[in-house]
């Protein structure tokens, strides 16, 4: 069972944090161990996931897209239809219930695209917790709508102007807040990254995606899928889909990272393809860095993928070959965004568009009887303003002829 008791997935993961955070991480691990198999806790979690967040989310057969690509059958796991518009709510409801059990009254979080921030602000309102969310100044600019949403929900959004002013720096600031206010505050980390036990807890709360998908695909297809496809930043939507299929070795996992303007450019966010092993934000994992160990600036059109690190379990999957990691550029993601809108009437998040973009390479070369499930991790409403400003960019639409 991974991670081991010290939080390692093979050589990845662990706990690389200031001493001050040790009791809080131990408390979190202990409370999670306690409730993990507790019937009351599971019931409560299930109650909120179903009656509040709208689970299970549908598994939708994307017929038009399947016909267009002319290969494998494409199914979309519709996390975009979960309350607040992304998979992030699965994790925040779970962590909110843990927070209540720890008796903490304040939560903090980092956010990139603002989807995690909105999901945190949502549970803060629901469970009457005080809430501060750190967000890079650049991300505030490109995801303004989510900033307003968080504010309407009663959360204070704190602009981070240090470093690259994106997710990495928001996380630095959230960790500094946590070190300072750890006695009263829970840090609601938004991905399967950070120090142990976060990668474990977030993965387990997100695994509802894969558990549902498993049941749903068996119901309609009477068999398991051949490929699972998801975008990867920290990697929580991907691990949520992949993990329940871990032992089904014939099911191939493909994670799609952001290549920014292209893999040959200096700044991408394709950590697993271009990174080397290092330590950032509490865990050992692949990392985009220079030879001195300074963390590299990143670029992606999708704020929620624009981060130089990745969750340790993905590093382990890469290292052991269990999953394959590829990348999609800004332009490919934009094209996939348009294509899904026009073919299926669904506006995907720019993050999810990276997973969709890889379909173009994968689906046509597969037989008609093969099955791909794509995690549609979020909806694109939050991106409309950013896209409107970019509409002078010529967007290419895939033409199969």
């Amino acid at each position: 069972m991974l991670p081991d008791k010290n939080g390692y997935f093979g050589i990845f993961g662990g706990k690389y944090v200031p001493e001050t955070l040790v009791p809080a991480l131990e408390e979190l691990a202990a409370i999670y161990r306690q409730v993990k198999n507790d019937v009351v806790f599971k019931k409560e979690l299930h109650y909120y996931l179903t009656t509040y967040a709208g689970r299970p989310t549908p598994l939708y057969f994307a017929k038009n897209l399947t016909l267009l690509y002319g290969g494998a059958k494409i199914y979309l796991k519709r996390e975009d239809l979960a309350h607040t518009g992304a998979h992030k709510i699965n994790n925040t409801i779970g962590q909110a219930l843990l927070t209540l059990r720890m008796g903490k009254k304040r939560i903090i979080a980092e956010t990139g695209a603002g989807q995690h921030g909105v999901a945190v602000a949502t549970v803060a309102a629901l469970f009457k917790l005080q809430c501060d969310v750190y967000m890079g100044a650049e991300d505030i600019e490109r995801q303004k709508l989510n900033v307003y949403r968080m504010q309407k929900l009663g959360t204070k959004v704190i602009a981070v102007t240090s470093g690259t002013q994106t997710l990495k720096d928001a996380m630095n600031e959230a960790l500094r807040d946590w070190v300072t206010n750890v006695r009263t505050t829970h840090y609601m980390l938004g991905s399967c990254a950070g120090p142990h036990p976060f990668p474990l807890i977030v993965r387990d709360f997100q695994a509802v995606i894969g558990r549902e998908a498993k049941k749903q695909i068996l119901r309609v297809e009477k068999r398991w899928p051949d490929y699972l496809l998801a975008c990867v930043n920290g990697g929580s939507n991907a691990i949520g889909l992949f993990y329940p299929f871990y032992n089904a070795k014939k099911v191939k996992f493909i994670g799609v990272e952001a290549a920014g303007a292209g893999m040959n450019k200096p700044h991408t966010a394709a950590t697993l393809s271009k990174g080397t092993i290092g330590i950032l934000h509490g865990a050992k994992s692949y990392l985009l860095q220079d030879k001195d160990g300074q963390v590299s600036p990143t670029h992606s059109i999708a704020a929620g993928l624009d981060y130089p690190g990745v969750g340790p379990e993905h590093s382990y999957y890469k290292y052991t070959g269990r999953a394959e990691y590829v990348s999609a550029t800004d332009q490919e993601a934009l094209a996939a965004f348009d294509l899904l809108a026009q073919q299926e009437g669904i506006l995907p998040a720019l993050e999810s568009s990276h997973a969709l973009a890889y379909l173009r390479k994968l689906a046509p070369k597969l037989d008609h009887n093969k099955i791909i499930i794509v995690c549609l991790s979020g909806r694109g409403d939050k991106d409309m303003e950013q896209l409107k400003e970019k509409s002078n960019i010529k967007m290419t639409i895939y033409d199969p002829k």
Partner: protein
Amino acid sequence: MNRIDLKFKRLKAEGRSALITYICAGDPTLHITYELVLELERSGADIIELGVPFSDPIADGPTIQRAAQRSLKHHTSLSDILELVRKIRQKSQVPILLMTYFNPVYQFGLEKLARAAAGSGVDGFIIPDLLPESGREISRILRKHKVDPVFLVSPLTSSKRLGMINRNSSGFVYYVSVTGVTGARAGLPRDIAQRAPELKKMIKKPIAVGFGVSAARQVAALSAWFAGVIVGSAIVSIIEKNIGKKDLVAKVGRFVKSLKS
């Protein structure tokens, strides 16, 4: 006995506590850091901590973050800083520890770094994002080369962990006075005096207290309880305010002298 042990032994015999001063190497330039280290020693610093800048310093407040940024603007590397210490050693035997985060250390290579550090005259490492249980390997390697791994204790550390941290640290143990990041604070937490006896019971090595100490009266008060008192951000702020001025080094020296009075 290395330079750190000798220093604490001598100070103990004299009935004094160590004044430990932090500056970030390469802020504003490596050459000025060289002059600053010599000036710090002349002005009464007993031990020097040299910050090795890191892009994502999660245990540091704004003052030291800015210092790291200034240093990284000209790509100061760990190798540069080892070279600097080697140069300082031609003039001074003041104990020097490098304070940095684990990633630059890890990228350098643990064995290679320990050897290079010992060769340059570095006496110890303080790595605030490395817990003793995650740092077993580096501790072993550093000790093999007679370089001290110094681990930290926080106000929230359990007494069970205190024993473990004591065993894993060499030279001294760093007591972080507050839950928080580095940065000058006007007042110090009231529980410090209460905490000191428990710390001393569990920790058999000299204990140095840091984070937030910025004024002579704080240094004097803490010296009554601890074998060492660490001042960082207050000095870094003086450097920041005097960048480009001819008397930067002298001003830092005057401030450090004032801390001892």
